[in-house]
């Protein structure tokens, strides 16, 4: 008991330590890009400037200080949530990110849900009948999804379902302009419109969500499908299941057991996909004019304003690392071996 407590303690400490180190690594990289590769002075000074103004700004933002001091200053700002000010929206980057995060979270959550809803059952079915028609279909769909450039698939869907068939609204944002955003509760229009009890707004919100979410679901779910299928096959072929079958354990019990053992890696993969989606929506947001973090970063780029981009990079890598940490801990709950690994 005590041993296991200590094991846990060390495990958590180690994992958390690595998490912090990774965060530190990320901040060093973003620091290098903003302070060393790019020159923030020219971005701050605007178009009309002289040498004196340049020097003043250099001093003001501490570019005349030694490198480690500059980094400490940068990291200190980050810890205080100061990600700088956007040159094109004139808002603190953190504020902008806060405003746009719900849009991206909503889109990626829908995409994840849509992906999981088909990928996990398809993976299981494919594992049960490896040579069956369903398995082949799942395989084909996974291959297609993984090879499909998301932004192009988005354009394709827009062309077919909007421009030609008119089944879905124009790819412009989250809700029809004539309806307007609902009262802010969660920031997710598909939920806020429900809370407001506005059917029309809800349908509008969902109809705007479906195509971009579908695009992302198609391109990101194959890994979930593959891992479900692979893991399920492994479990079904394991000695335990074979002997359980040999001893005449009823089929549904066998499957239930197999499923439970499949769950761990599948959940890890789903978590990873979610972690990836937060930044993986960029191009799809551009295609559908979805006002989330990705579009924000692209707008910033088009204004040569890279503090917002770096803010989004920091946020999404932090999010990814957090998800990674969480899935490690989750796995350790089920598999004691993980706890003693590095």
């Amino acid at each position, binding site marked *: 008991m005590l041993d296991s407590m200590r094991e846990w303690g060390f495990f958590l400490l180690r994992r958390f330590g690595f998490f912090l180190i990774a965060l530190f690594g990320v901040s060093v990289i973003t620091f290098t890009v903003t302070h060393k590769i790019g020159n923030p002075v020219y971005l701050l000074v605007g178009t009309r400037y002289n040498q004196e103004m340049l020097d003043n700004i250099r001093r003001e933002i501490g570019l005349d200080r030694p490198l480690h001091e500059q980094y400490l200053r940068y990291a200190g700002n980050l810890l205080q949530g100061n990600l700088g000010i956007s040159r094109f929206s004139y808002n603190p980057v953190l504020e902008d990110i806060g405003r746009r995060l719900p849009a991206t979270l909503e889109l990626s959550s829908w995409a994840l849900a849509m992906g999981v809803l088909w990928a996990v059952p398809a993976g299981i079915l494919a594992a049960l009948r490896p040579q069956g028609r369903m398995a082949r279909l799942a395989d084909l769909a996974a*291959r297609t999804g993984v090879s499909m450039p998301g932004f*192009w698939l988005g354009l394709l869907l827009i062309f077919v379902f909007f*421009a030609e068939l008119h089944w879905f609204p124009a*790819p412009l944002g989250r809700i029809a302009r004539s309806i307007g955003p609902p009262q802010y509760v969660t920031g997710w229009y598909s939920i806020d419109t429900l809370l407001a009890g506005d059917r029309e707004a809800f349908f509008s919100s969902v109809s705007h969500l479906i195509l971009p979410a579908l695009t992302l679901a198609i391109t990101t779910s194959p890994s979930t499908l593959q891992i479900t299928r692979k893991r399920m096959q492994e479990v079904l072929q394991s000695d335990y299941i074979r002997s359980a079958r040999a001893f005449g354990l009823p089929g549904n019990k066998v499957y239930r057991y197999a499923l439970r053992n499949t769950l761990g890696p599948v959940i890890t993969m789903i978590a990873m996909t979610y972690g990836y989606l937060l930044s993986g929506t960029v191009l799809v947001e551009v*295609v559908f004019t979805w006002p989330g973090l*990705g579009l924000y970063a692209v707008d910033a780029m088009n204004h040569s304003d*890279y503090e917002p*981009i770096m803010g989004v990079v920091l946020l999404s*890598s932090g999010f990814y690392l957090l998800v990674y940490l969480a899935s490690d801990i989750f796995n350790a709950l089920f598999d004691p071996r993980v706890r003693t690994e590095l």
Partner: protein
Amino acid sequence: MLAGEQAIPERPSLLQRMMRANGPLRVRLNIGLLLLIVLLGLLAPLLPLHDPVRPNPLNRFKAPSLEHPFGTDGNGMDVLSRTIHAIRTDFALAISSVALGIVVGAPLGALSGYFGGRLDSVITRITEVFQGFPQILFGMAVLAAAGNTMVNLVLILAFYNVPVYSKMVRSVTLPLREADFVQAARVAGNSPLSVVFRHVLPNTLVPVFSQLPLSCAYAAQMIAGLSFIGLGVAIPTPEWGSMIQLGANQLVFGKWWASIFPGLALFISVWLLNNVSDLFGSLVVRRG
């Protein structure tokens, strides 16, 4: 015959083993088509195609016809010719970035796996950080800050490939540490570095090559994605992502050809690369 080496029966060729594992049709089809695409790209300048960068302002956004089977784009350039010439751009960029990633990543992984210990855990952790990095976003930021050039694009993609290959080579190297031929080389008095580079690294080639098409597929998607938002490739260089972007504006008005054809070419290429990677992968798994 040297000590430790065994007489082995005539080994079947890679291709034969691949066919045995996957069925000849699948292997022929995938590899054949991929080679065809590469060949098209290589021979593009010799083919009877329109000049891919010759604009014709009087012939813009023309629908597919006999003269222009894929239509013309916003500059009045022939989409077919550009789609084929883009193979050169996209494949060259993808392959060079992956190659660079291997050149840096593979030795790192081999060193890390061979020496183990602290160096190993440091390298492993660093690779993990990179893998969690929002790659498109970060690419955007670096290209915006460091200059929007093809060289920078290749460097960024190589940067992403380094951890992929160091991780893979490390995992292959770990069991090799105790392999007979490595120990023999060590006993023979070779320096650790020379053991790593002469004896360990060559043995990681097969898994590295099986990963290669997959990395190229991924790199091609990244290149096209970044070009789609105007990064990396200068206009009017034929490149799938920027071609898709150029045509995207007219897609909603029914002029689909300028975007759809290059996208299709990208999709098919990535598809084939992924399949070929699977074929290679089946070899590695069997071997292990």
